[in-house]
């Protein structure tokens, strides 16, 4: 069943001197519970596309449907967005950070503490609720950011290179945690990344975009055998290198 549908999306940025076309004729559909990745050279507009799906600003042309409903700009708590860095609020405790989304939506704060504790348990940081972000490592902070995103129970998760600021070890661990958590909650997710390996390891399908202007170039289906494994295991699997080569060649051909 289609959950997220993009219909003929065009987008241009306007500045004083020029209008720059960043996205041209993007149409795609993503199933409910599916995990997909957007990859492509820099300037292919993948982050712009993600922002449009998140409702941060409207596309110049085209329509976005989530769960059959057309997306209105902003005030869309059904969407969870994770950025390159954690962007935890340094003046709030971890618990307050996790529940900030809930606080924006409802005034009743009684249940928030319970939700926060449950989520922190889920991401393996049960005892940090009263700490401040500066007391946590980069990996831990990004895990808290994941908890904050999940707290509002979004229908779809948009991940904008959320692992790019982490060291390699934390990145691998967090990849596993994200996939595991999203599977457990049956969430639909879109990951934007420049790392082919990450895309293969985490997703079911990989959308390759070409640049100037950004167009959807090709869609790769990740073999079923890899889809069932955790991201870490995928990287060890013999077919991983094969898939990597296929996508790499295609990416190279874009120049």
């Amino acid at each position, binding site marked *: 069943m289609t959950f997220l549908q993009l219909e003929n999306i065009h987008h241009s940025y306007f500045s004083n001197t020029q209008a720059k076309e960043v996205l041209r004729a993007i149409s795609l559909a993503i199933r409910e519970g599916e995990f997909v990745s957007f990859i492509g050279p820099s300037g292919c507009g993948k982050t712009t596309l993600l922002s449009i799906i*998140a409702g941060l600003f409207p596309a110049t042309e085209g329509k976005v449907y989530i769960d059959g409903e057309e997306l209105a700009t902003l005030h869309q708590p059904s969407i969870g*967005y994770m*950025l390159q860095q954690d962007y935890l*609020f340094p*003046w709030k405790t971890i618990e307050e950070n996790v529940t900030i989304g809930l*606080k924006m939506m409802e005034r009743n704060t009684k249940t928030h503490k319970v939700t926060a504790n449950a989520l922190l348990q889920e991401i393996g940081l049960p005892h940090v609720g009263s700490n401040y*972000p500066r007391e946590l490592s980069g990996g831990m902070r990004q895990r808290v950011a994941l908890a904050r995103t999940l707290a509002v129970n979004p229908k779809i998760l948009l991940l904008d290179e959320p692992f790019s600021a982490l060291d390699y070890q934390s990145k691998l661990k967090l990849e596993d945690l994200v996939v595991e958590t999203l599977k457990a909650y049956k969430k639909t997710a879109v990951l934007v990344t420049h790392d082919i390996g990450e895309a293969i390891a985490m997703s079911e399908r990989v959308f390759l975009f070409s640049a100037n202007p950004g167009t959807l170039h090709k869609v790769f289906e990740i073999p079923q055998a890899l889809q069932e494994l955790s991201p870490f295991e995928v990287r060890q699997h013999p077919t991983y290198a094969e898939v990597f080569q296929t996508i790499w060649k295609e990416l190279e051909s874009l120049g």
Partner: protein
Amino acid sequence: MDNTLFKQYQQMLKKEKRFVRLYQLIILLIFFGGWELLSRFEWIDRLIFSSPTHVWQTFIEKVSDGTLTLHVGVTLMETVIGFIAGTLLGTFIAIVLWWSPLLSKVLDPYLVILNAMPKVALGPILIVALGPGYFSIIAMGALISIIITTIVVYTAFKGVDPNYSKVMQTFGATRWQIFREVILPASFPTIISTLKVNVGLSWVGVIVGEFLVASKGLGYLIIYGFQVFNFNLVLMSLLIIAFFATIMYQVVELVEKVIIKNNG
């Protein structure tokens, strides 16, 4: 082994602190001692530069006849109110500008003009408009810090990493919620540092205001002392101003410590 090294390090820190304090004290003693000696031996004109003992005598005199408490009280009241009013109003205008980007574009050149203008030059107009009393002096104390507060705080609001707002937007936060939860707390350090500047500015505004019009207050004492050529009075007022300005600054630093501690 580590323990002894750590103890040595702590002792070194202590020693350094004592050393700093000692020299600070020596400077103070040299200043007042030197002043006294120069004045005693008439190397400086006693009539103009007075001497610590004479200033002290004047101080005792003014305290015992009860007039000093009145003057200090009036000036402190005016300064504190002017300081708080200037900071709050300045911050409020900054909030309005943040709220309406269009308004901020429209008002931009006027802010520049108002900021460049020496506010004390408005003194006579203020006095005529508001009457020669506490009110116009407080207005001077406030006016002198409003515009610079507006500019600095507004710049801080705009400088907050937009990604923090983005996070809030994805949660469907309203503009007011974004302001309260993100923009304001993220700008607290800047607001505090403008407080520190405003302490000094408010003193300038109030003292100049008192020069112009007052019949009470430390600024009045300075002008009065100058007119009757009683420089004991002038220097005493100066020292008292220095003392209370320092106290106010320390209070602001205390507030800063409390806020920043909760602020990460």
